[in-house]
């Protein structure tokens, strides 16, 4: 039987979990979440600055690039708590961009960008295309030589998260017929090339990006020898961190629903006393605990050959199942109020759908697991 992961939790993770729990609770009360939904920027720039000052953007970056030098599993508690409080910020986008650079970037790119990212400059990835394929190496956008050490880009990207906030966008392109990634400075993107998209999770900010005519120095291309490794790493890291947000969201939507079941009365009784509600919410809770166990197994084993990929895919599959079920039942168990915009159940249900669409849903990962396990 192969090693498919195990729980481990370091002191650093425990400290980060404590810090993130308090920070996110204080900085992201639900009224503020709703206010930021209406806000074009979509996040609190002061909170974002604080995160940078606290060093959170460098948790998983090596010390030589200004980071803390911890494994990426140490970022999991942060995203779990952000997901729990629906705290909007470019944190995930920026962390993933840094991860891409770490694995696929050239030494020059790392030295130029990573210390700035660690200090709080936002960055993001542009990977999704019109096909909506989760396979990151199925790429139509292209980079071609434009002479004078420049590349000309063509094609369109979708669902580029936090593109407005980012100083750099790292886009997937084909170059000389091969998938690769290229760093684009925000300044190189012409007016009008970014269009804000309408997305199901209104706490998120995503953009369509037209690359047609965009030019960028050839030196901004990732190391071609490491491009494939970079795609694989981005895929898994995004699923690990996405699972963390999902676990936090699942916990929150269960808490939110349990509160209602303890206060709303019908037929003279608290509705939480009815087993038609009690038992499914318990099932949701059990699903959540299982998802959280998978999450911290993936966080612990992420860097390991074999167990890292398996545990991460399991974490995402279980998080998807748990979050979707809990948030779906949350709407139902709030009755007519559950159908309203005012009820927070919709925030979580939308978040769960958004998360499932990021880098592969449960069914997708189960298929990959079948290849790995059966």
């Amino acid at each position: 039987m192969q090693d498919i992961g195990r729980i481990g939790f370091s002191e650093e993770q425990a400290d980060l979990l404590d810090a993130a729990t308090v920070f996110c609770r204080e900085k992201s009360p639900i009224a503020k979440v709703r206010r930021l939904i209406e806000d074009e920027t979509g996040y609190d720039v002061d909170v974002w600055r604080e995160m940078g000052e606290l060093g959170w953007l460098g948790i998983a970056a090596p010390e030589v690039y200004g980071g803390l030098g911890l494994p990426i599993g140490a970022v999991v508690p942060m995203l779990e708590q952000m997901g729990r409080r629906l705290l909007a910020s470019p944190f995930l986008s920026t962390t993933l961009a840094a991860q891409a650079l770490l694995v696929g970037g050239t030494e020059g790119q790392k030295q130029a960008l990573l210390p700035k990212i660690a200090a709080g400059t936002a960055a993001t990835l542009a990977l999704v295309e019109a096909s909506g394929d989760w396979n990151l190496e199925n790429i139509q956008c292209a980079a071609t030589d434009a002479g004078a050490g420049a590349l000309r880009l063509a094609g369109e990207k979708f669902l580029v998260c936090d593109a407005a906030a980012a100083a750099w966008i790292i886009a997937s392109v084909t170059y000389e017929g091969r998938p690769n990634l290229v760093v684009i400075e925000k300044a190189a993107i012409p007016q009008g090339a970014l269009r804000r998209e309408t997305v199901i999770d209104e706490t998120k900010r995503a953009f369509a990006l037209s690359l047609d005519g965009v030019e960028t120095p050839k030196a901004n291309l990732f190391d071609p020898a490491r491009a494939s490794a970079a795609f694989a790493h981005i895929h898994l890291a995004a699923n690990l961190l996405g699972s963390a947000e999902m676990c936090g969201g699942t916990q929150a939507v269960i808490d939110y629903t349990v509160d209602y079941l303890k206060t709303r009365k019908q037929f003279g009784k608290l509705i939480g006393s009815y087993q038609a509600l009690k038992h499914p919410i318990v099932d949701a809770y059990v699903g959540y605990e299982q998802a959280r166990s998978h999450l911290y197994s993936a966080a612990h084993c992420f860097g390991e050959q074999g167990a890292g990929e398996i545990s991460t895919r399991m974490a995402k599959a279980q998080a998807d199942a748990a979050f979707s079920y809990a948030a779906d039942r949350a709407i139902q168990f709030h009755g007519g109020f559950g159908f309203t915009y005012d009820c927070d159940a919709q925030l979580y249900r939308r978040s769960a759908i958004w998360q499932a669409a990021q880098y592969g849903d449960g069914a997708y990962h189960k298929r990959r697991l079948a290849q790995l396990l059966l």
Partner: protein
Amino acid sequence: MTGAGSKELNDFGAAADAWFRENVDPDPGFMLPLTFMEVGTDQQFEWLRDWQNRVYEAGFLGAAWPEQYGGGGLDPAFQAEATKAMRRHNGPIMLNAIGLNWTGPLLLDLGSEDHKKTYLQRILSAEDIWCQGFSEPENGSDLGNAQTRAVRDGDAYVVNGSKIWTTLGRYADHMILLARTDSNTPRKYDGLSFLLAPMKTEGVRTVPIRKLTGEHGFTQTFFTDARVPVDRLVGEEGQGWGVAMRTLEYERGARGGQAGGYVSVQADAWDVLELARGMQRAGAPALDDPVLRERMVEFIIEIQSLALCRQRLGVPALNSDRPAGLPLSSKLMNTEFARRVNEFAITLTGAKGAYYVGDPSAVDDGIWARAYLNAFSATIGGGTSQIQRNIVGEHVLGLPKS
């Protein structure tokens, strides 16, 4: 006492490993039960009693119980090593489950000195077999309503009534008995008392009950003026409900102190995967079927959930929001998984899903069908899954009582 990770611990683990390698008999010549609730024949009973005794004599059962009561007096880490070795070599189950896992820790916590001296060592050695008399024909989930009467008469309680679903009832020497000593309390719970009742005594009669598998397992137990000495009371008279609830915590694994070893072996998703590898669908390996593939992966994810949740229990920082959550939900998670995975295994066998134990054409001697039927013992016994959901809902999530 020596801590975990020490040389003593490693040596102990190695000794256990060697012992189980040497002593586990892969084929006793007949089918051994997978759980203590399945013991159905005298042959199985005698064989397992002897096996438990040998494990105890070798020092690999009760290693963490106090020495003066027959235990090894070691840190729990030692027993954990022995149990791991037992599992590694597929050792058969420990027979005396109700003694080892429920009565033992209960008496260690709440028993009198005399109780401990009288019973604990004989539980470990399997000289005394224990059973549990909680459920009654009319009162199962609603255990607090138990009506079996125990009336004080001099230095004994005189017991009348009937208990049912008594696992190992036919073989047991003693019973943990929940009986009503007072019928006039305002709250039904306050009239109950908890007794250590002799089984092989006048006025106690057991009648075997045939299980859904066709085998004989548990019994109905009738009491007619059976006498239980007053000093066999655990806790005070009228406190039996609290003691019984504590017993159920040991039973469901929500509280520790058990003697060690294991009392059931579960087929798990990996065994089912092995089974699937050998099966055919539409002229091709069953595992080429996309639907079966997905379900198989879901079961592997789920069994991994169970293992990881057990590991996470040992990390308090990851249980801070609802510390009782994992302990109180583990029975529900584990037993429902076992039922569903065995059900899935039957469907994998295609047309041969029609066979049952005893037919030469049955896949794996028919164990999958039998294991599925037997899996209900755990989703019903020890508090049904519905009751477990009530417990998790009320005691973990804080929902109002149903």
